[in-house]
């Protein structure tokens, strides 16, 4: 156990001592924030206003502050969702670096069990992701709290933290399988570039997934990361939507908030059906479990050279 903790600590030290790696891990989230300030917020706000205009006389019942808060929370879920993809992947590249620089020889020649070695890379990447996304969550909640009433109580915040933990662990489990096939840092770096560019779209951070065709929605939602973002959206934004519903006083029979949930994908469309939060949680945990088992098997098979 000491060896496992030692290797995990070493992987975490390597990640957190390299500021450049941290910045690049969060690059997609940073770009997302800039895009939000430039035009994404306007798009989100326009979408809400457009839905409100469909019900005459309701626009006056929902304040500008609430609409801004809605857009802010949608942004926060996007930032967290993309960070939960890029941070664990970047931390896992330590494994590829170790292979390329033959540092793994030094680890393989110690009494550490093969399962312990692979799990230590897994745990360190998941912990790094929980720490960084946890910090982003706290900063984000403080930032939206300063802007006005986010309708987030302690239970919802704790739930969000739980989703951040599950999201980080599940993304790490999936990427572990991917990373085991990379033998050079340049190849894994190229994949990271692609991943950074695609992640924002796959989780629906730039454009809600509901705007895509059924086939594209299904492809996006197959990835646990998309479903994690949707669950997070439910946890962080639902309170505000309930508050908006109360403000409308039932004049629309809940149709406005339903349309918002549909437009901003509060359920995951898979083929012709929908996954709601409990289904998504089961799906995420199942994928995570299968990937953890698969990574131990794959590493045990591939660790010996030739």
């Amino acid at each position, binding site marked *: 156990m000491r*060896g496992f903790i*030692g*290797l995990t600590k070493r992987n975490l030290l390597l990640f957190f001592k390299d500021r450049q790696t941290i910045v690049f891990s969060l690059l997609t989230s940073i770009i997302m924030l800039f895009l939000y300030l430039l035009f994404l917020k306007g798009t989100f706000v326009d979408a809400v206003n457009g839905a409100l205009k469909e019900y005459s006389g309701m626009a006056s019942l929902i304040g500008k502050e609430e609409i801004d808060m809605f857009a802010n929370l949608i942004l926060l879920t996007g930032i967290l969702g993309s960070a939960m993809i890029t941070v664990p992947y970047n931390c896992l590249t330590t494994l590829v670096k170790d292979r390329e620089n*033959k*540092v793994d*020889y*030094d680890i393989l*020649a110690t009494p550490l069990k093969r399962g312990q070695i692979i799990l230590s890379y897994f745990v360190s990447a998941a912990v790094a992701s929980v720490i960084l996304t946890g910090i982003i969550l706290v900063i984000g909640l403080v930032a939206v709290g300063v802007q006005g009433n986010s309708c987030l109580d302690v239970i919802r915040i704790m739930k969000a933290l739980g989703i951040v933990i599950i999201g980080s662990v599940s993304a790490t489990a999936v990427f572990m399988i991917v990373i085991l096939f990379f033998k050079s840092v340049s190849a894994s770096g190229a994949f990271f570039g692609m991943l950074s560019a695609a992640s924002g779209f796959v989780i629906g951070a730039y454009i809600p997934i509901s705007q895509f065709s059924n086939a594209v929605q299904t492809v996006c939602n197959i990835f646990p990361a998309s479903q994690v973002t949707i669950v997070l959206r439910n946890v962080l934004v639902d309170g505000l939507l309930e508050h908006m519903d109360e403000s409308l006083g039932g004049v629309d029979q809940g149709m406005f908030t339903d349309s918002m949930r549909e437009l901003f994908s509060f359920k995951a469309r898979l083929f012709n059906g929908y996954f709601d939060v409990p289904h998504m949680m089961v799906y995420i945990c199942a994928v995570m479990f299968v990937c953890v088992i698969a990574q131990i098997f794959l590493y045990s098979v591939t660790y*010996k050279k030739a």
Partner: protein
Amino acid sequence: MNAITVKNLTKKYDGTIAVDQISFEVKEGEFFAFLGENGAGKSTTINILCTIFEKTAGEVRIFDYCLGENDDAIRKNIGIVFQNSVLDGKLTVKENLLTRASYYGMGKEEIMERMNPLMQSFELESIWNRKYEKLSGGQRRRVDITRALLHNPRILFLDEPTTGLDPLSRKMVWEYIDYLRREKRMTIFLTTHYMEEVRDADRVVILDKGHIVANDTPARLKNLYTGTKLIWYTDRCIDNETVMNGFDFDYEVDHYIMKFGSVQEADLIGFLYQNRDKITDFEIVKGSMDDVFLDLTGRRLGEQG
């Protein structure tokens, strides 16, 4: 007792035979050297013995432990100084060594108990909190050797430990290795392509293209495969060359080099006595390990085969 026993060890990569049915033994406390060019199979053999690579065929025992069956026990008994540094550049010397010690299941107290004498022996106090990437080549090698000794191994594998080091750092590394041999009676398994480094070895194995071409003490290898050279400082002239009739000789700058094969060595004293009036300025030089390698492989180390 044998520290290492290797029988018919073979390693194949994608159809290429890197190591071909090699057999050798290393006694406990012995300084054993593996000599050969790059690509001869030295590092592959070390990596198999250290449980990093899987063997294709053959039998390996480290003390009483069988490779492939008791790998964990083997790992506890070996320390390795790799050809290229395997410590983390971004971490300090302290962080590197403490994390590596934990891989062997050592607790904090046990680590410090083990670390303190090593810190003194390898003069690590002044670089303890410096990042590994900021150290000089010699300092890095000192840390590498310390890392290999953290868990008090019985065998120390050194895979070309002085490659790329300046002469002063090489000397320093060899002083440490000598200390381990003499004071700690540690079994040392060295791979190198520097001839002078195997001079003091108890046993030398010469590996060429995956095969063992020689396995003996340096002195016996020299006796078997090289002769003695008589260097006679004199002018080049017919008269002098008549004296050397029947012997293999050559002239270089200001001296003749006469080669006495191992069989002819007995003639050397007689030859000198016979020509004592003529040969007044001379020296006798034993063949080097370089000559042994040349004789066995047809190449000097560093030449492409």
